[in-house]
């Protein structure tokens, strides 16, 4: 194909390959973009409808209706509580999670690459990964005070082991073939670590980071319930004390939406930035 031909618009229109293709068989409606969106909307609407019907049978203290919950959103938004709570919780999650990645990924790589370091630290990893962060809430407050540090530390704790374990698994599964190829192309061990092992491990790091993000949401609520004035966990706990069940609902729904949004953001960033590392998200 010569450059002259391809750059000429006449050529393009004349040889439009679409014209020659047989028409694609039509997808079933539910598989189209619109069909899928409608399915999701239907599912959510049905859930809210069931919630509505159930709420007719119970007092609002037991099960507040969707309208009441929506009203509560309005109240909490108007006095700034909702936004402040989201901000506080999100800041703690981002700090602890980010710190967990910054520490967990390099540690995981070093542990995966140097079997001595792995054997050295393995007893601790294997021990602490079974202790849920909630068990450490009290200790965190005693050691780090009731300020931000204790909450961030708990999120860090919940993140770091998952990220480490996934990164180690990634390093251990790098194919021998790639290592040999790099060595035969003149790479020294440090270069192999940085230019072959680390890039090969990226999908595992991302998996670890996403699981850790989910766990961070679990942890933040328990941490804030015990030791925070503001934050979504604190909001849920305070609402219970005031008998405002609808505020509890607002907190729960906020958590769900926030987690979903965070995961979407991570996926979007990964797709954009880490596309070449074949991360399946």
């Amino acid at each position, binding site marked *: 194909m010569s450059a002259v031909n391809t750059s000429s618009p006449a050529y393009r229109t004349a040889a439009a390959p679409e014209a020659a293709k047989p028409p694609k068989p039509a997808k079933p409606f539910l598989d189209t973009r619109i069909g899928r969106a409608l399915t999701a909307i239907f599912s959510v609407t049905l859930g809210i409808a069931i919630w509505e019907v159930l709420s007719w049978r119970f007092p609002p203290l037991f099960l507040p209706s969707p309208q009441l919950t929506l009203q509560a959103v309005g109240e909490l938004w108007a006095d700034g509580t909702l936004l402040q709570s989201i901000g506080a919780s999100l800041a703690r999650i981002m700090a602890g999670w980010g710190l967990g990645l910054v520490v967990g990924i390099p540690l995981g790589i070093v542990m995966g690459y140097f079997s001595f370091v792995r054997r050295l630290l393995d007893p601790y990893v294997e021990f602490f990964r079974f202790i849920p962060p909630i068990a450490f809430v009290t200790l965190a407050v005693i050691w780090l005070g009731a300020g931000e540090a204790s909450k961030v530390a708990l999120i860090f704790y919940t993140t770091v082991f998952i990220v480490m374990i996934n990164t180690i698994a990634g390093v251990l599964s790098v194919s021998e*073939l790639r290592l*040999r*190829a*790099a060595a*035969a*192309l*003149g*790479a020294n061990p440090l270069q192999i670590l940085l230019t072959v092992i680390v*890039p090969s491990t990226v999908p595992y790091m991302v998996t670890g980071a996403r699981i850790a993000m989910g766990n961070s949401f679990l942890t933040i609520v328990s941490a804030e319930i015990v030791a925070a004035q503001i934050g979504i966990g604190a909001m849920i706990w305070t609402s219970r004390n005031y008998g405002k069940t609808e505020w509890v609902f607002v907190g729960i729904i906020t958590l769900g939406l926030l987690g979903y949004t965070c995961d979407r953001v991570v996926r979007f960033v990964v797709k954009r930035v880490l596309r*070449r590392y074949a991360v399946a998200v």
Partner: protein
Amino acid sequence: MNQPANQPADRSTATCSGAEIRLEHVSITLGSNQIVSGINLDVAAGDFVCLLGPSGCGKSTLLNLVAGFLPATSGRVSVGGRPVGGPSVDRGVVFQSTEALFPWLTVQENVEYGLRMRGVSRAERARSAQRYLELVGLSQAAGRFPSELSGGMRQRAQIARVLVNEPSVVLMDEPFGALDAQTREVMQTEVDRIWRATRPTILFITHDIWEAILLGNKIITMTAGPSARFKSVVPVDLPHPRDPTAPEAVKLYRDLREDIAAEVRRTLQVQGLVKDDTVPGVAA
């Protein structure tokens, strides 16, 4: 030899003219299995040697040995007069699996990899990569990722990635084994052309007799494992490019085929899979 005269001084060992490969009394034992025993091999500089043998006879083990991926249990391995102590950029390896390409790098970045590891400047890397991409006919695909290429194109990329370092020895481990018949034929012609243009020493492993006849100027057959040895060394003096229908080629094919068939038969007998001298599909 179409190399420019002004190669960097530190690359003096790796101008694309070959080095000799020498194996002396080499044996390799992995666990309790002796894979090869008492191998002696002399490959002259610039030779194209095809190692031909049934699967499981230790061909790849020998290649891994020369590449420096495996140590010899006993015996000596040297390339260009120096003992092999580990992998080196001076001994390029083209693997059968295209998984050996780095999927997160573009074709050009893959080709530049060896140069980058040695700290060659970006501009010079790009220049060299372009030249070798052109040599293997991949200039148009420089910016694509390996996953976007066909099997044949990926093997071209692997070959360019090795040749750009101007190794004195190129080790090829059934590089076209996974390609379809047509693509394989094209690639064989290409490798023949590239070898004659750049003249590295090539050790080429295959179980395809025709491939060995088309490419090698020496064909070495191996006995069946375990404890495989060399069976025969056959020089091939046919003119390039080779015509597989020439009577000499056909005769060579018959001889080699009988050689290999005898070994396959022996393996099957050792394994107790056949009782008598006949192997279905491998008539004498």
